[in-house]
C-alpha cells in the first residue's frame, strides 16, 4: 500500500489549517480509509485538542525522532473511529527538534500502512513549514477571502511549485460568508481563485458550530446538520477522486430565511 501524503498549509495563521486537518482526516476515516494525522506545529500544538485526544498523548513525534519509542507506539487512536490516528507534536520543544529528513522518513514509513497521511503545517515559512512539506506529494492551501491571507497563500504556492515532490496543490477557501459576498463586502470565491490561479478543492462556509466543536474536542463533520461539516465531507470525497458538485453555501439556515427564500423564488417564477 502506498498512501498519499497531503500537507495542509496556508502561510498565514488563524485561517483554519488545524480545523481543516482535523475535519478532512475524520471525514476520510469515516469513508473507510486508514488515515493518520501528523501535527508538525511543535511547541504550539492544537490538533489533539480539536480531536479531543489531549489526555491520551504519551509519546510525541519528538520521542519518535529521538528514538525513545517506536512509531506505532506514538500513534494515538481516535475515540470513535479506529481508522483514524494522530501523531501528536511535543508541546515542550520547538520546531528545531525535528528535521525535514526525519519527517520525510516518518511519512515514508507511514505510507506503507495508511491510505492518507495528513500533515498539519504550522504558520509561517520557516523550519516548521519546510519540515511539513518535506514528505508531501500533495498540498491543500487554505485561505480566507481576505487580501492578507491571499497574499500569504500566493507566497506559499510559489514555494510549493519550487518543490519537485509536491505533485499537485489545490485551494480551499475557508470562512466564506455568502451574505457579505452578496453586498460586495467580501471577495467571492471566484475572485480568490482568479487571483491565485489555482484549482479549487472546496469552499467552507463560516459556521459558528466550528467554535463549539473545537471547544468540545469533536470535529464538525460528525455533526450531520452542519453546513461546514457537509462541505468538509465533500472535500474528503474530492481528495478520494470523486467528482462532487460544490455545495450551495447560500442555503437558508433559519426558518425565517427559508420562508423568505421560498417567497423570493415564487416572485421570480
Amino acid at each position, binding site marked *: 500500500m502506498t498512501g498519499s501524503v497531503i500537507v495542509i498549509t496556508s502561510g498565514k495563521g488563524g485561517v483554519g489549517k488545524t480545523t481543516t486537518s482535523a475535519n478532512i482526516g475524520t471525514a476520510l476515516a469515516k469513508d473507510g480509509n486508514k488515515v493518520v494525522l501528523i501535527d508538525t506545529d511543535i511547541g504550539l500544538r492544537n490538533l489533539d485538542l480539536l480531536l479531543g485526544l489531549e*489526555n491520551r*498523548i504519551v509519546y510525541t513525534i519528538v520521542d519518535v525522532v529521538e528514538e525513545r519509542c517506536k512509531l506505532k507506539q506514538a500513534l494515538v487512536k481516535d475515540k470513535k473511529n479506529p481508522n483514524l490516528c494522530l501523531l501528536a507534536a511535543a508541546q*515542550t520543544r520547538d520546531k528545531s527538534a525535528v528535521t525535514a529528513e526525519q519527517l520525510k522518513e516518518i511519512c515514508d514509513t507511514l505510507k506503507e500502512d495508511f491510505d492518507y497521511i495528513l500533515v498539519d503545517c504550522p504558520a509561517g515559512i520557516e523550519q516548521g513549514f519546510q519540515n511539513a512539506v518535506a514528505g508531501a506529494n500533495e498540498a491543500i492551501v487554505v485561505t480566507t477571502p481576505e487580501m492578507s491571507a491571499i497574499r500569504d497563500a500566493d507566497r506559499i504556492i510559489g514555494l510549493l511549485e519550487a518543490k519537485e515532490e509536491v505533485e499537485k496543490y489545490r485551494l480551499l477557501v475557508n470562512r466564506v460568508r455568502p451574505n457579505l459576498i452578496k453586498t460586495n463586502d467580501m471577495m467571492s470565491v471566484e475572485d480568490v481563485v482568479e487571483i491565485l490561479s489555482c484549482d479549487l478543492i472546496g469552499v467552507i462556509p463560516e459556521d459558528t458550530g466550528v467554535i463549539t466543536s473545537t471547544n468540545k474536542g469533536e470535529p464538525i463533520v460528525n455533526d450531520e446538520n452542519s453546513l461546514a461539516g457537509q462541505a468538509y465531507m465533500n472535500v474528503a470525497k474530492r481528495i478520494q477522486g470523486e467528482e462532487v458538485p460544490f455545495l450551495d453555501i447560500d442555503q437558508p439556515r433559519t426558518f425565517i430565511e427559508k420562508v423568505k427564500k421560498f417567497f423570493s423564488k415564487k416572485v421570480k417564477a
Partner: protein
Amino acid sequence: MNNDLFVIDLSGCNNTGEIITSVSAAFEVPEAKERKIGLKLNDITLNQAQMISIQSLIASYASELSYIETPNEATKNICENMGINAQLCEKPQTSAQAEIAFEIPKTFQGNGEAESDNAQDFAGNNTLEFQGNGLNVGMGANGEMPNSGFEEFKPNEFNEDGKQTMETYKKAYDENEEEKQTWEEVDYYAPPTDEPVIVDSKQTIYVTQTLRSGQVLEFDGNIVIIGDCHPGSEIKATGDITVWGVLGSIAHAGAKGNRDAKIRALKMNAVQLRIADCYSRRPDGTNIPYIIKSSTFIPEEARIVDDSIVLFKIN
C-alpha cells in the same frame, strides 16, 4: 553576602506548610535575599527533614539560615545537630497579634556564640504586619535598628529577582549537588527494576511561580509548586509532587520507579497522572477550565493502589 541578620517571625505558624508559605512570602521583600536569616518559631516540633526543607527553601533565595529561636527543645537540638545556631525562648502568647519581645543577641556574628544577655529589643515599633497572616517580619542588624526603607514594601509587588526561570532553579540545585545523577538518560516510562530505587527524600525543590504551557520542571527529588500548573506543561520528579494550586498538566511522580510516590494538589484537573510505571488519564468530557474562579478547592492525593492510580480526598 550581607552579614546582617534578617529575622522572620513565624510564631503565628502552627505547621510546616504555614512556615513554608510564610517564608516564601517573606522573600518577596528584596532585602531578605542574599543575607543571613533568623527564624522565630512557635512551639512545634520539626524533624530534620523538615528543617532541611526550610533550609533549602531559604538557600534557593541565595540566603543562609543561620539562627533559630524556638520554645521547643527537640527542634533546638536538631538545629544544633545541623550546625545552625539555636536558642530556647519562652512560649509565645496565645494571641497572634500580641507584641512579643523579640530578642537578638548583640554579639551574634555568624558562627559566634550566642549570648542572650546582651539582647536588643526591637519588637513592636519595628515589626511589620505582612499580608495579615499573623506573620511578622522584622529586621535585625547586629543590634542596629532596622532599615527605614522597609516600610515602602508592597506585598503584591513582584521584584525582578522574584521571577526566576526554571533554569535558574535547576542550576542552583545542580551546583549544590555533589553527586550529579544523569537524569536525562533515565527512561521515565520504564517498568521498575527488581532492585527498588531508593529516592533521597531530603531533596526537595520549591517553585513559587505558575507553570505555563510548554514549560518542563524536572527534579531528582520532591517538587513543591506554590502556584498553578497549566495544561501543556510537565512536571517530572523522582519523589513526590505537591501542587499548592490547580494541577492541570501532566505530572509524573516517582519517575525512576518509586511506586510509593504521591501526587497532591489543591485542585486535581491533571490531563495525565503518572506514578512510576502506572499511567492514568483524565476522563473524556471533563475539560473544565483550569483557572477555577470559585474558592471551592478539594485537595486530592493520587497514589498507587493495586497497580492503578487512585485519587483520595485529603481532609
